[in-house]
């Protein structure tokens, strides 16, 4: 039996292209969260997420609805993040004006209408803390944690997205959580 995502993709494959917007709306935030954690820059993460949706849309005819769309999409994002990271690492640091402007915006995010400035700052601090802790992990463990807690993927889906066995996927999550847990214990003293 096909899940909702697969049914939507079937309709997209049949020509109802507008239905793809439902999937964008559904997955954009968790993908962005993971990409931001992975890449560290907002505009870069937004671009990568957009590229992931573009790739999924362009490859819609090759998608098999009997497989999990969610896993497929997350696999695309993980691979794009890796590729982008390697590409930027091999090039000298360059920034466009729009990136500089966006960077300034990142430092002080606009609060939500119901949120106070303090809660926003606390939230930002928490996010930065998570980002820092994940950055200290080996890449595969950090990706596994992002897929588990941001993507809410099951362990079989994580294994499929990362191209590893089920036991390896569980081990990566386990060891990643152990390291973050020990780091938090050390911080608390």
């Amino acid at each position, binding site marked *: 039996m096909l899940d909702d995502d697969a049914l939507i993709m079937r309709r997209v494959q049949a020509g109802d292209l507008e239905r793809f917007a439902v999937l964008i709306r559904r997955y954009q935030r968790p993908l*962005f969260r993971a990409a931001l954690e992975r890449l560290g820059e907002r505009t870069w993460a937004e671009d990568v997420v957009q590229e992931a*949706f573009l790739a999924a849309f362009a490859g819609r005819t090759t998608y098999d609805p009997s497989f999990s769309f969610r896993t497929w999409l997350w696999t695309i994002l993980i691979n794009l993040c890796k590729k982008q990271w390697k590409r930027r690492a091999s090039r000298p640091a360059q920034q466009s004006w729009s990136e500089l402007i966006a960077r300034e915006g990142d430092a002080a995010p606009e609060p939500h209408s119901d949120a106070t400035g303090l809660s926003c700052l606390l939230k*930002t601090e928490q996010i930065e803390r998570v980002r820092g802790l994940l950055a200290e992990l080996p890449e595969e463990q950090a990706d596994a944690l992002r897929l588990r807690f941001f993507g809410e993927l099951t362990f079989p889906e994580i294994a499929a997205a990362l191209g590893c066995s089920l036991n390896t996927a569980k081990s990566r999550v386990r060891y990643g959580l152990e390291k973050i847990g020990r780091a938090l214990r050390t911080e608390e003293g």
Partner: protein
Amino acid sequence: MNHELNRELNCEQVFQHLTSVHPAPLNGELDRHLAGCSSCREMADLFQPAVALLESGRCDEVSGDAPRPWEQVWEAVSVAQRAADQLRDHSAPSRRRVSSRTAALVRSAALILAGVLVGAALGRVGAFGRSPDLARSDRDQWTNPLMENAADCRCEGLVTFLRDAVAHGTCPTCEQPIASRKQPALTLCMACHRESIGTRPDPASSHESLSWPRGNKNDSAKERGPFSFADPKQLPGAREQASAS
């Protein structure tokens, strides 16, 4: 009584529960297991603050760290798709021209090759340098279903007909266009050739009877041409075989 409420968890289930974003509600099963399992207790102590921190780092409205509106992403996807369609449509005519020319050449070459291959296969059983007896025995081993009904038709004339049909795209006898790409000549020329040797004609066929190169089946052998389809001894190479043996 609900047995689920009093079930015993194993360590794997505890691990799954502790690493779930939306763990299923338990009724004391977790506490009971942790009370009796020191390794899971240690795991829970390490995992719980880490999981709490990771879950707090999930994107929400309060953080202000929201991505660009999803409508913008969809717009970008749509624009990219439209651009790809435009590029494809723009380049399609020249590609079609080239590909149709190439396809025509490939088709002709394939048809000629098919004809040669069929001719060679047929030649092994009679017309090209082998004895009629041997040809007849080979004939019995023929497995092509289209040729089964034409066991008596294997001869030079048929081979030539097939070659003509393959080369020109029409049956040289009835001049009907070849309908099937896979077995083009066989389908049509079987019908023509069966009629020519006096076997039961295809009632659906409306073509003229065969003559070589053109004519009536009641024509004399001389008028029919250099050889008769029904007489294997008249085949090219048959006389040489007979004199050699």
